[in-house]
Each structure stands twice: as structure tokens, then as C-alpha cells.
């Protein structure tokens, strides 16, 4: 039987290739996350490179931003290299839970809902949400002027949630448009498909400063005061590693390095507490 021979050879080959991969997997589970990171000398950090000035691809094609600099310092403190894993934002937190990387850089707004599920490290910037509008648009002078207009924000972001909460208090409904990332929202604002973008102040201040002829920030921020932080899981296996990163972050803050980085990327330094305060939303 020619068929049988063919079947047996090919299936046998397949089996032989599958076995070593399984054996290797067993090995990696023995130590906790901190021990594994130290042993490999690599801290894997998940992020989205579409969140300037925290994390983006600059005009020369390099991965740049506040996160890159801040984690370089964290890496120095821990004595490890940083390996970045770039995902669309709505995929980052699920992949963290699945264990694809040690922690997430985002950063993410520290919210009640997220605190229930994740461990936030020392806040790195203020995250209060404000409105970005077209530079020549006079119809929006204060946040409440977005009533009856179309406003965009990133999908699965706390900024979108803040926008929804705020919009519910306005006399006329606000039409929401959800984007895969904030860059697409900015592009649609520049093309006037939407009237405004809701995002945290450090982000839109940066965008407006880069393109003053196109964008302008509407002050004051409409959202409740909040902070940005880096994120880890609550899995027992990860806690020692997150403690080490937390210690490194607090040290970077206390010796003034954090302040320098904030000034470099946001044009201003924030007074951020060492431990995130209880969020109001």
C-alpha cells in the first residue's frame, strides 16, 4: 500500500518535531517571574507605539518616547535589558494576562475597574482628559462646546470612558467615534471628519506643540484628576518582579531623573505620588 507508507512516514516526522518544544516549556515554569527575568537578563514589556509622547515611532523610524527613556533607567536599576513587544492597545492587556510579557508600559490611566484586575506601579504622569480641536475651529472654546459634535478617542481606553461619562452630562448628545489608536483619531481630526479628540493632557499638549497650525488644546481639562501608571498582573508569580520595578521607579523619582524625563517629553514636570492614590472613577 503506497498510501499507508506515505501516511506513516509523514505522521512520524510530525511527531518527532513536536516533542522537544513541549519539554522546553516545562522547564521555564520552575522559577518565579523575577528569577526568570534576572536569569534571562531581559524584561519583556508590552506597549502600543501609537501614544506620543509616551511611546511612538519618531520621524526617523526609531521607537522613542518617555517610556523608552524611563524603562532604560528601570533596566539599569534591575541590571536587565528591555525587550519591547508592540501590540494594538486593545490587545495589550489581554496579552499581559495571557503571559506574553512581564508588564505593560502604555501607560494606562489608573482607574477603579483596572485596579480590581491589575497592579499599577508608581504613577509617571498626570492623565486628566482634555479636548483637542482643530486650530482654526472657533466653535469649541470650552469643553462643553463639544455637545452635538463628533468626538473621537482610542478603543478600550480610559479616556474614551471619561469622554462618555462627561458627554452624558451635556445638554446635547455627543457622537463618539472609536479608533484603533489615537493617531487615527488625530488624522481624522486633521481631515475634519471629527470635531475633536478626547485624550489625556500630556498627549494632546504634545500633539498640538508638534503641529500648532493644525491642532489646539481646549482648556481646562474636563475629566477627573487621574494618573498614568505602568501595569502588571496580580498573579503571585509576578509580584516579586513588580516590587523590584516599583522600587526602581521610586528611586528614579527621588533622585530627580524622572523629573528630567518629564520635562524632556512633556515640557513640564508633574508632581506624582510614589503610590497611586485611590482613583475617583
Amino acid at each position, binding site marked *: *500500500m*503506497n*498510501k*499507508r*507508507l*506515505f*501516511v506513516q512516514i*509523514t*505522521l512520524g*516526522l*510530525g511527531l518527532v518535531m513536536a516533542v522537544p*518544544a513541549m519539554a522546553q*516549556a*516545562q522547564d*521555564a*515554569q520552575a522559577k518565579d517571574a523575577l528569577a526568570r527575568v534576572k536569569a534571562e537578563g531581559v524584561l519583556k514589556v*508590552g506597549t502600543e*507605539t*501609537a501614544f*506620543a509622547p509616551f511611546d*511612538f*515611532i*519618531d*520621524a*526617523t*523610524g526609531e521607537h522613542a518616547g518617555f517610556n523608552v527613556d524611563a524603562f532604560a533607567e528601570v533596566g539599569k536599576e534591575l541590571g536587565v535589558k528591555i525587550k519591547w*513587544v*508592540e*501590540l*494594538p492597545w486593545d*490587545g495589550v492587556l*489581554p*496579552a499581559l494576562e*495571557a*503571559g*506574553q510579557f512581564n508588564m505593560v508600559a502604555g501607560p494606562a490611566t489608573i482607574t477603579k475597574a483596572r485596579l480590581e484586575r491589575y497592579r499599577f506601579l508608581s504613577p509617571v504622569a498626570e492623565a486628566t482628559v482634555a479636548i483637542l480641536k482643530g486650530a482654526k475651529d472657533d466653535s469649541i472654546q470650552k469643553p462643553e462646546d463639544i455637545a452635538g459634535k463628533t468626538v473621537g478617542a482610542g478603543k478600550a481606553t480610559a479616556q474614551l470612558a471619561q469622554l462618555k461619562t462627561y458627554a452624558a452630562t451635556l445638554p446635547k448628545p455627543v457622537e463618539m467615534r472609536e479608533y484603533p*489608536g489615537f*493617531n*487615527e483619531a*488625530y*488624522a481624522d481630526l*486633521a481631515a475634519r471628519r471629527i470635531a475633536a479628540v478626547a485624550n489625556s493632557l500630556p498627549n494632546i499638549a504634545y500633539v498640538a506643540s508638534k*503641529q500648532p497650525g493644525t491642532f489646539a488644546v481646549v482648556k481646562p481639562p474636563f475629566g477627573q484628576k487621574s494618573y498614568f501608571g505602568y501595569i502588571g498582573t496580580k498573579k503571585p508569580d509576578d509580584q516579586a518582579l513588580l516590587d523590584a520595578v516599583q522600587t526602581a521607579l521610586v528611586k528614579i523619582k527621588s533622585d530627580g531623573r524622572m523629573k528630567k524625563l518629564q520635562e524632556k517629553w512633556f515640557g513640564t514636570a508633574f508632581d506624582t505620588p510614589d503610590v497611586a492614590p485611590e482613583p475617583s472613577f
Partner: protein
Amino acid sequence: MSPRLFELMLKAAGYTVAISVAAIAIGLLIGLLVCAAKLSPRPWLRWPATLFVSFFRGVPLLVQLLLIYNLLPVLGLAVPSVVAALIGLSLCTAAYQAENLRGGFTSVPRGLLEAADMAGLSPWQQFRRIRAPIALRLTVPALVNEAILILKASSLISVVGVVELTRTAQNLAASTYEPLLFYSAAGGLYLAINWLVAAGGSLTERALRRGRLA
């Protein structure tokens, strides 16, 4: 576009090609296994193969990629993004290639095999001299088609963290505020790559027709 950014686009295109070629090659190997199992007279081989094909053909590649990426670490396999992407692309194309190959093998005329049996060819000789060459010749156009589909579908793997051609174009479009430039460059690069694949396919077909291969 500055030379530096164009270089980045080319590099990303190289990445797209590398991953697609690897996926198509691995997919062909797995496709052979699955095809063999599907053609097997034994139900315990046929059934899993049928299930495999219906799953990987029936579930969108995007969903498969997200599923594999998020499932592997749960199974204790902490693999990098590229590996997850490669597994997803390979398994998906394996299902299609298995069906293409099966089409080729079942199209080998029975009379030829009966004649070979009469002439005293062993089963392996029949496979090597008759079944495989004919099936391969019949399958090449479908394989080229599949290769082009996978090259284009590889734009999906950015959802599991692989920065390939499409993702690079998105990133650069965002940082330079020149979406038209970068998306048309990406389109041009895909077109050029696929043109090469199609040209390679017609060359192979011609060589096979003249009996130079297999």
C-alpha cells in the same frame, strides 16, 4: 520619503517576505501530513485531518492569530510574537494547501496506477514516479495562488506584535503625517513582491510541463 525611512520600509518588506515564505514552506509540510491523513483509509487518521481543515479554513485568520497568541502562554509555551504569528499563518495555509494537494492526488487517473501495478512498480515507485509528479503539476497554480494570499494576509500579524510592512507604514504615516506616501509605498512593495511570486510560479509551471522538475 527620506532614504532612511525608505530603507525601513524595505526592511519591513523583507520581514513580510521572510515570514510569509517560512509560513508557506511549513504550511506545505503540514499540508502534506494533513493531505496524507485525509487520503488515508483509516478513519482515525481521516477524522482529525478533516477537523483540522474545517477549523483552520472556517475560522478567520485574524481570530486564529489572536487565539494562538493568547493561548500559547496558558499552555506554558512563552513564545515570541513572531513564532505565534508563524504558527498561525502556517496552520491556516496548511489547511488550504492540504485541500489543494488532495485535489491534485485524487486527480491522478486511476488507469495510470493500474498500469503501473501491472508493470510491477512498487508502491513507493508508483508514488515517486507517477502520483507525486502528476499531483505536483496539478497543484502548482493553486500553490502560487495560496502564496500570494498568505503574503497579503501577513499584514494581519501586527495584531500579535509583529511589525511587518503594513504596521511599519502605519507607524511612519502617523509620525510623519504623510499617510498617502507611506500607504502607496506599502501597496507598491506588496505588488512588486507578488508580481515576483507570480512570475516564479509561471516559470515553475513551464519547467514542469517540459518535465524538468519532479
